């Protein structure tokens, strides 16, 4: 009777390493030996990969590696930041609604439907258009849009545990509602919530790309992956220098795949197999 957990596997560690690499590069971008993402090298315009510019330059002579690394900041802050907001608020409400049930559940649930009733992309476009599009505003708006999604998943997961006998036992022992939620429910709900949240981060990173295509992501010339792909696809750049769009798209693809695999493997690893008896 050893620990019966599914091993995480090599792929998990490769993907996790990639995510950490992207996060580190974005965080330490200022200290890396790379040119500024907005500095123009007039001697190298629309060049392919070279020793001087590892990933080449765009049509304004800007270093693409630098732009991708700095652009990762925007994608990561919006991706992780908005999901963190959604997880904090939606998760707390989900635990509360799932555990309490009854009127508490009905009220919070109705609130979640109000937000869900707006088509998310359209709502974000309208709000961003009127309110402005700084990094923090984008993160906050997308975070609010993510609340009901995360709320519903965590509420459902909580409900599947809320009626178990160990919760009743905790109440009989005199545990407070807060203690039951934190000590008994949260550890059970967390694995699936984290897995879902990582997929959510991937979805939001793509969403940032969509907003960039509508010209509603962070203002130029600040690079974001979405902005770079957008630039790479405009002004006939796709024919002249496909690398501009290729590199950020590839970075996005690899990060999204990594997030999905890490999330999946984590959930499988922490999945409690209860069929043993």
């Amino acid at each position, binding site marked *: 009777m050893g620990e019966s957990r599914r091993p995480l596997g090599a792929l998990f560690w490769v993907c996790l390493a990639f995510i950490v690499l992207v996060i580190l590069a974005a965080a330490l971008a200022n200290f890396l030996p790379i040119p500024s993402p907005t500095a123009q090298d007039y001697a190298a315009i629309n060049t392919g990969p070279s020793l001087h510019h590892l990933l080449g330059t765009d049509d304004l002579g800007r270093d693409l590696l630098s732009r991708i690394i700095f652009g990762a900041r925007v994608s990561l802050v919006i991706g992780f930041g908005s999901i963190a907001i959604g997880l904090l608020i939606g998760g707390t409400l989900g635990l509360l609604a799932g555990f309490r049930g009854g009127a508490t559940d009905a009220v919070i649930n109705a609130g979640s439907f109000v937000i869900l009733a707006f088509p998310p992309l359209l709502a974000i476009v309208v709000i961003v258009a009127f309110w402005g599009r700084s990094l923090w505003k984008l993160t906050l708006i997308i975070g609010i849009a993510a609340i009901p999604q995360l709320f519903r998943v965590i509420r459902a997961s909580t409900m599947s545990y809320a009626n178990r*006998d160990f919760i009743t*036992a*905790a109440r*009989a*022992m*005199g*545990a407070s509602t807060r203690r039951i939620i934190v000590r008994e429910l949260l*550890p*059970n709900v967390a694995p699936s919530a984290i897995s879902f949240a990582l997929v959510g981060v991937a979805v939001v990173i793509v969403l940032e790309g969509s907003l960039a295509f509508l010209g509603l992501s962070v203002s130029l010339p600040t690079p974001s992956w979405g902005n770079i792909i957008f630039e790479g696809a405009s002004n006939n750049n796709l024919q002249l220098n496909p690398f501009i769009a290729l590199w950020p798209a590839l970075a996005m693809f690899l990060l999204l795949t990594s997030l999905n695999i890490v999330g999946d493997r984590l959930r499988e690893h922490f999945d409690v197999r*209860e069929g043993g008896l």
Partner: protein
Amino acid sequence: MEGSQPAGTPNQPVGTPTGIRNQPAGTGTEGGNGKEILRVEHLVVEYGPRRRRVHAVSDVSFLMAEGETLGLVGESGSGKSTTGRAIAHVQPPTSGHVYFDGIDLGGLSTGRLRRARTQIQMVFQDPISSLNPRRRVRDIVAEPLAIWNTGTAAQRAQRAAAMLEAVGIDPVTVGQRRPQQLSGGQCQRVSIARALMLEPRLLVCDEPVSALDVSVQAQILNLLADLKEQHGFTMLFIAHDLAVVKSISDRVAVMYLGKLCELAPADTLYDAPLHPYTAALISSVPSPDPERGPRTPLAGRTAGMAGTGPVAAALANEVPSPLHPPSGCRFRTRCAYAATLCAREEPPMRQLAPDHFVACHFPLAH
């Protein structure tokens, strides 16, 4: 009726509801070997919306004396588990009162109820659902002390280890496992250890052995009996298996569709049941001896009645829905002796022999 009982009668249960109302807590019920610890008065538990109201427990009253084991039996849906949960106040009663040690649990504030109900602990049927799958056994057992911040973490761990040892679980090897790595019997031992950490005075066991193999059932029952002797708690033992209940109970109460049918000392109930439902239940217990056939307490009871015929047939019908319980006596739709009176009037609980209570218009004669 209660007042006329000799004061020295042990384990005196509640008969008619009117009897208890006039009976202040702690007087008239103190018997030779134990004073009243639990008094359930007109307990009603209903749930669901008005039109689809489930009458899980309808007007149940009884007493428990300190140190006794009361068995509570009935079919699925008879309300026995709900009764147990309402007593522990993990499910609030719709109406009625539960007095523990003379204190009305329903009248307490949330904070005081939290403290008071630590004296009533529960052991559940499902060994898997009873334990948090994410936590280690030693943490699960130490949790009750952690909730009340009793002692240091080291002292709590020590007491948890001692309790695990007492229930036959190795605190070193098994203590660090998680519930899904344990067998069903081990899970129940852990549940029992957890329930006893707060030194409760009343242990409500809700079908604690129903999900276990027969050989393991016996081990757990013996463990409960041993622990009861050591710790001196009172036990409400809920089960649907009459053989199991008989082996562990001093008195046995039979429930049917949310009502109490019969309440008597265990031996009396099994040898001379007064309620047709009790008799039918007993006759349906399979006998381990193939030569003897099923137990037939009613065989030859009345001239012209062939063995267990009518009573055994009675239980073949379905239990009526608790949404719309039958009028009068709730058992009448399945009772071989039902008469018009049974549909019209609900039989009151009455005492027909010393300590033997029954709610039936036509109790069986012996």
